[in-house]
């Protein structure tokens, strides 16, 4: 057995949530936040890492307020951040229709959808600010879908029974991201934000538990640069790419967040990783990712498998009575719009029981035949046209005539750097936004809440909480470049790069990454078991050992070196992966996307244990030799639910 004892820290963490009713917490918090006067704002330097919706939004908003902002992205342009790919839509608790939606229902759906492992007050803030997000994004040019009468149009997503998702065809993420990146460019043009492209943040300068700057590498020249700051925002996205085959972009990574963790930031719920039920199945050895088909497709597509295991007739030859619409059968109230964790698990069950379809028998059908018959091809084209094209591009099949094939794929990380109600991590002055954080989604994120949380954090939360922090540090100078803390951090970061270049083995980092992904899918995937997790931990440690003895990174560190970039990221994934498994092993219950086979009801549903596990785990890093961190220490923050009482999730 790998894990004998997981060290646990007391007392519980304080999330600094305002006392009292969570529904009014944000209102009260804003009233009590300290301010920085307009004339003093330009004296503060804020570094924002990442230019997705959270990063662009925060950098632009803070720039508009008059702070001196330096924004980093590893891309060649801010617009390319991976928020661009969240195409389905963005939720907002506007509750304008008469379908029973409201702010409270949004909170209820989100908390319940997340299986009661989110911070309730954060969800209220998310709901409250969601209204303004739509207004702002519309105002800066996102062409939201409109009704014929000119009003905003909505659709529904998994886990809810109302229609609260705003969208722009199948390009919502793209349109929001491009709009946000343009507002960022507006601030660059105005001189309030300095945008540094193709830079990767390698480390954080931390003194006395407080962040004082970042160390970054210019990816085109290899130059190492230091940027001192009064506050730093990490808006660096999620870590699903640890699974290699994931819906994430190729360069998405955990590095900046992981380096912050190594410097003392606690990492919350690393094992909460969502498997998206409508990803394209893996079909070939050199496949680089699992492309995501938007969940919005489940509005009109029906999911089914052949009733007979091993039936390999073409889909259209299987008669109606021999098809099993298993989601509609098992979850009649939600049907094909059952939440993601439930839909993913149900698909996995079907595939494992031999009902999988496609050449590798690793997928299920998502069929638009009935919708096309009912609505006509034109309407379907209008609703999902570009998604259908994307599917045809990827697979070479025409989804208008043959059902799509989909399978669960690693997707959104609900875990991330632990932060308090003000989005501040356990390192003072280090804030987190968007998917890099943890607060809203619990153990399962509802569809269309991801763009929303990134927007709310960047545009409407951090611009309040960061000034509140900075107000206590007025007239403090930036850390000098020759400060020992700076030189030491630079030395650490360069030492790590040199170590990667010096391994001198034979194998490229991609191969290790692919193998890590296989271990994670097997051991820490849609369903987890204690034994499987322990084995995965052993395998990860072994793989890490091989990585550090057999890695080959060609070239040098003083040039554009994509192999070096990848190696650094894979090294971090190899460490994070163990923490994911330790967290999943430790959390002796099932909740949301964390499904432990030893904790399920007789019907195979997740069995939560609120008596013992109604808290968020936040892990403290324990240093160790290169590539072999010590056993992490578990902290915990108890979760309380005042507005949405703890209850068993039931989507039947």
């Amino acid at each position, binding site marked *: 057995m790998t894990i004998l004892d997981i060290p646990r820290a007391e007392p519980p963490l304080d999330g600094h949530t305002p006392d009292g009713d969570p529904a009014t917490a944000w209102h009260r918090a804003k009233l009590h936040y300290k301010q920085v006067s307009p004339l003093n704002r330009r004296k503060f330097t804020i570094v924002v890492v990442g230019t997705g919706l959270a990063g662009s939004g925060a950098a632009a908003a803070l720039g508009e307020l008059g702070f001196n902002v330096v924004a980093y992205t590893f891309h060649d342009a801010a617009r390319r951040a991976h928020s661009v790919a969240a195409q389905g839509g963005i939720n907002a608790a506007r509750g304008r229709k008469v379908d029973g939606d409201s702010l409270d229902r949004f909170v209820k759906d989100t908390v319940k959808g997340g299986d009661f492992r989110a911070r309730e007050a954060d969800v209220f803030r998310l709901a409250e600010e969601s209204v303004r997000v739509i207004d702002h994004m519309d*105002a800066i040019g996102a*062409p939201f879908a409109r009704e014929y009468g000119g009003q905003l149009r909505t659709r529904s997503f998994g886990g809810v029974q109302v229609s609260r998702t705003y969208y722009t065809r199948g390009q919502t993420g793209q349109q929001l991201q491009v709009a946000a990146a343009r507002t960022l460019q507006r601030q660059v043009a105005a001189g309030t934000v300095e945008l540094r492209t193709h830079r990767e943040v390698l480390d954080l300068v931390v003194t006395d538990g407080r962040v004082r700057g970042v160390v970054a590498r210019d990816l085109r020249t290899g130059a190492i640069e230091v940027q001192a700051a009064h506050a730093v925002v990490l808006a660096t996205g999620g870590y699903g790419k640890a699974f290699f085959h994931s819906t994430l972009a190729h360069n998405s990574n955990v590095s900046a967040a992981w380096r912050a963790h190594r410097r003392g930031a606690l990492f919350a719920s690393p094992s909460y990783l969502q498997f998206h039920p409508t990803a394209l199945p893996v079909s070939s050895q050199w496949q680089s990712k699992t492309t995501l088909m938007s969940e919005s497709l489940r509005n009109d597509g029906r999911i089914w498998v052949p009733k007979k295991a091993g039936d390999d007739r073409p889909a259209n030859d299987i008669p109606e009575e021999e098809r099993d619409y298993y989601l509609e059968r098992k979850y009649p109230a939600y049907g094909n719009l059952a939440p993601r964790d439930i839909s993913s698990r149900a698909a996995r069950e079907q595939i494992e029981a031999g009902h999988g379809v496609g050449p590798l028998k690793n997928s299920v059908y998502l069929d638009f035949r009935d919708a096309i018959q009912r609505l006509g091809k034109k309407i379907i084209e209008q609703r999902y046209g570009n998604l259908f094209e994307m599917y045809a591009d990827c697979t070479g099949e025409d989804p208008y005539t043959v059902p799509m094939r989909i399978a669960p794929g690693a997707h959104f990380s609900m875990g991330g750097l632990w932060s308090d109600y003000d989005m501040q991590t356990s390192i003072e002055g280090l804030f987190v936004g968007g998917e890099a954080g943890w607060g809203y989604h619990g153990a399962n994120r509802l569809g269309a809440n991801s763009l929303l949380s990134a927007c709310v954090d960047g545009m409407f939360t951090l611009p309040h909480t960061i000034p509140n922090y900075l107000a206590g540090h007025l007239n403090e100078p930036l850390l000098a470049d020759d400060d020992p803390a700076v030189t030491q951090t630079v030395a650490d970061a360069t030492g790590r790069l040199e170590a990667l270049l010096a391994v001198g083995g034979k194998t490229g980092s991609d191969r290790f990454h692919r193998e890590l992904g296989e271990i994670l899918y097997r051991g820490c995937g849609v369903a987890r078991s204690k034994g499987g997790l322990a084995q995965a931990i052993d395998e990860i440690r072994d793989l890490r050992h091989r990585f550090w003895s057999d890695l080959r990174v060609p070239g040098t560190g003083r040039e554009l070196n994509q192999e070096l970039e990848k190696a650094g990221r894979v090294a971090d994934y190899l460490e994070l992966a163990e923490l994911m498994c330790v967290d999943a092993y430790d959390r002796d219950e099932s909740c949301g996307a964390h499904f432990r086979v030893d904790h399920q009801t007789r019907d195979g549903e997740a069995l939560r244990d609120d008596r013992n596990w109604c808290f968020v785990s936040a892990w403290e890093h324990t240093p160790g030799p290169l590539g072999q961190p010590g056993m992490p220490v578990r902290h915990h923050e108890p979760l309380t639910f005042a507005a949405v009482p703890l209850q068993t999730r039931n989507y039947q």
Partner: protein
Amino acid sequence: MRITLEVWRQPSAQAPGDFVTYVVDDATPEMSMPELLDRLNDQIVEAGGEPVAFESDCREGICGCCGITVDDRPHGPVANTPTCQQHLRNFSDGDVVRLEPFRSAAFPVVKDLVVDRSALDRVVRGGGFVSVDTGTAPDAEDRQITFRRAEKALDFAACIGCGACVAACPNGAAHLFSGALLTHFSTLPQGRPERSRRARGVVKAVEAEFGPCSTYGECVEVCPAGIPLAAVAAVNKEMMRAAWRRGSDD
């Protein structure tokens, strides 16, 4: 599939470049162009060489990162399809495929297949945005936009900023890109208050770094977002309009 690749190798912007020939023996029809390069690079790393630098990220045709010239055509043989969605099923076993960076004076080569497309961002900085501060927006429902208008704006807003239009243009013009930007905003009421100001700023930036448009239309054939040719016309139209409006912003 056996694919012979002639790949442009150039160690840095200053260094001279040349084509180097490689063979990938175990390519498969499902592979996308970046996956073929992944396979090639795996092979090169195993053999102790230096892999080919190329950009790609989402690999879903959305981020606009990828973009190389395949057999003299930006993105590749399938029209209106980004590099990452060009699959080998459109090639034959034994084919010789030539890969090189997007060629344009405005896009200097950084290394191998990577080019610097920051000129596109400088066009955006010229005024390709709506000047509304965070939190100050009116209720989006107060602004009625017809279904058709929103759809039209979206047709132009779909641009992924890949730069293929520039690479395809014999003049190296960025009119499809900048016209899409201007039309997107001029179609929507929220873009109107600074329509003329935007046109002046954007066109000034375009003229500073890109060539003039000759309406050849090559750009439209390679555009992965299917931006209509009308975008090209819009650049002059918006500029003329701005000139008539003299010094006014809208």
